[in-house]
């Protein structure tokens, strides 16, 4: 496996602050590399460096055997494309957005038309050519941004939190597109994320980044198998907790994750563990639910985020849990900031990582 890009002792200072700290990284051609880290860890900056938009203060980048310097920066940009976390589209039609990069490369008009059509098909937006890009829904806009980058068939595709602001339906569409692009177009993909599930399923390698420094690079499977201290301390990695497990008579573990919160599980570990509960497995209610689920906690809503058809809530039951409910439910339940609620989830939903 050849490496498509190599970073050697790369450091980047911005206004005398260290944003990237002595990074050495090898990216293999054709792989999907996940970049996992909390907000402010330098993920976006690293992606911009790989997009050749930012120059490092110290260190070296090799791209396809070439050292990246001032002279070839603009040329090499043609080989790499970055898709922002916050979707930014041009104030024009979907077609003009997707065609932008092709026009910059002076591709003939007929070919542009064909390639734009194919790109829109790939992101499941056939027929959207004439629509005003800014008037589309959040998920559709993100797909246009993705098509705009994919159509360029760059060697390297950089994605900054591609599904962070999307509801599960759109998120899974995007994930499919990314996997297809990697498989069929053989694009090397580096994607920054703080979604545990995504980091686990999509990339074949994961690099952990914190405070501008890459602490480990492992295959995705290995990362999640080991109990890495770094993992659980990521504030932004939601519903991940470090705790101590003790076995019950039934042979299953109860994990104390701190602040008096004890979680019942169906696995049989002991000692120091890290656990993860998917937001989709958590039920929110205003009154305590009597059900077969073993884990019921009372808490207060400490954060509300609007994701379009979904609403993301953070409930503090001693430790913060992230829950997703439909907007309708949110309205029906008349929830607001500080409201007292209950969260419920099954013991079998607790995943050990």
């Amino acid at each position: 496996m050849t490496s498509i890009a190599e970073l050697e002792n790369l450091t980047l200072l911005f206004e005398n602050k260290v944003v990237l700290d002595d990074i050495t990284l090898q990216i293999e051609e054709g792989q999907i590399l996940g970049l996992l880290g909390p907000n402010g860890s330098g993920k976006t900056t690293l992606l911009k460096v790989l997009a050749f938009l930012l120059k490092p203060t110290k260190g070296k980048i090799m791209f396809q055997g070439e050292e990246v310097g001032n002279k070839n920066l603009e040329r090499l940009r043609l080989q790499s494309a970055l898709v922002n976390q916050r979707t930014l589209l041009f104030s024009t039609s979907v077609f003009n957005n997707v065609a932008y990069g092709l026009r910059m490369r002076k591709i003939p008009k007929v070919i542009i038309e064909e390639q734009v059509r194919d790109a829109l098909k790939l992101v499941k937006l056939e027929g959207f050519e004439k629509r005003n890009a800014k008037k589309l829904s959040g998920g559709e806009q993100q797909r246009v941004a993705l098509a705009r980058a994919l159509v360029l068939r760059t060697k390297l595709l950089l994605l900054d939190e591609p599904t962070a602001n999307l509801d599960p339906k759109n998120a899974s569409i995007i994930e499919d597109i990314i996997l297809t692009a990697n498989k069929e177009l053989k694009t090397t993909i580096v994607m920054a994320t703080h979604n545990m599930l995504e980091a686990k399923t999509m990339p074949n390698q994961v690099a952990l980044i914190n405070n501008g420094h890459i602490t480990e690079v492992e295959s995705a499977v290995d990362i999640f198998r080991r109990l890495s201290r770094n993992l659980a301390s990521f504030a932004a990695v939601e519903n991940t907790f470090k705790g101590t497990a003790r076995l019950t008579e039934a042979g299953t573990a109860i994990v104390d994750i701190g602040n008096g919160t004890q979680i019942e599980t169906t696995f049989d570990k002991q000692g120091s563990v890290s656990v993860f509960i998917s937001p989709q497995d958590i039920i929110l209610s205003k009154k305590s639910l009597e059900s077969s689920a073993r884990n019921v906690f009372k808490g207060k809503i400490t954060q509300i985020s609007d994701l379009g058809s979904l609403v993301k809530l953070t409930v503090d039951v001693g430790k913060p849990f992230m829950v997703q409910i439909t907007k309708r439910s949110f309205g029906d339940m008349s929830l607001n900031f500080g409201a007292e609620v209950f969260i419920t989830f099954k013991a079998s939903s607790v995943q050990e990582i």
Partner: protein
Amino acid sequence: MPHPISGRPSRALPIGTKHMNEILDGIIRAFQMIFTGDPTVYGVVYRTLFFSGVATILAVLWATPIAMLISLKDFRGKSIIKSFFTAMIGMPTVVLGLILFLFFTKAGPFGFLGLLFTPGAVILGEAVLVTPLIVSIAINAIEAVDPEMLNLARTLGASESQASITVLKEALTGIIFSDVAGFNRAIAELGVALMVGGNIAGLTDVLTTDISKFTSRGDFATAIALGIILLVIVFGINLIIIIARNPRALLTLGKMPQ
């Protein structure tokens, strides 16, 4: 009572009605001028539009690169330069007119060009006047574009030059507004055109300078008539520009979007 000198009967009117009469006279005179195709009036209108139009084009050409450099680059003293242009919007036209007069007079530094009291001087003078206005509004418009836009253009393969043009396009509404504002200021100003143009009948006179001249002579009806013509022209042009940008505005006649 016969007038002491002309011998004709003088009309003594109740206080206050004299000037209402003037305004009515002015409205009638305005229609007369337009519809009888009075060549002097048409000449003044033509010169007004031509001088202000060319001046605006010049000012847009000067202002756009300045606004691009200031808003797209980071440098020390950026806020000072931005405040300078904003402050220059308030430059009194007579003061600028005087400064340019001293530049263009034959005895002055640019006198060898022989531009004083020529159409060229009026055009250049008005262009200098409105450039700070266009620069300031354009900077605002460009800065309102998402700061990541430049990087987005670059990552998609745009060169620096193409990327800055892309940012300009995203700021287009604001930039067009800045240009229209410049034109409105140019066509309505008096001080510069008067001082450097000399208000020479048939050569450098424009609507504003002629309004001033006729007021000075006491011919208020003609002054008001020209004033009405000027207002109609300015409103007309602005209306055309609004409709050209968004033809649907005509249909909804400016109703709020549902």
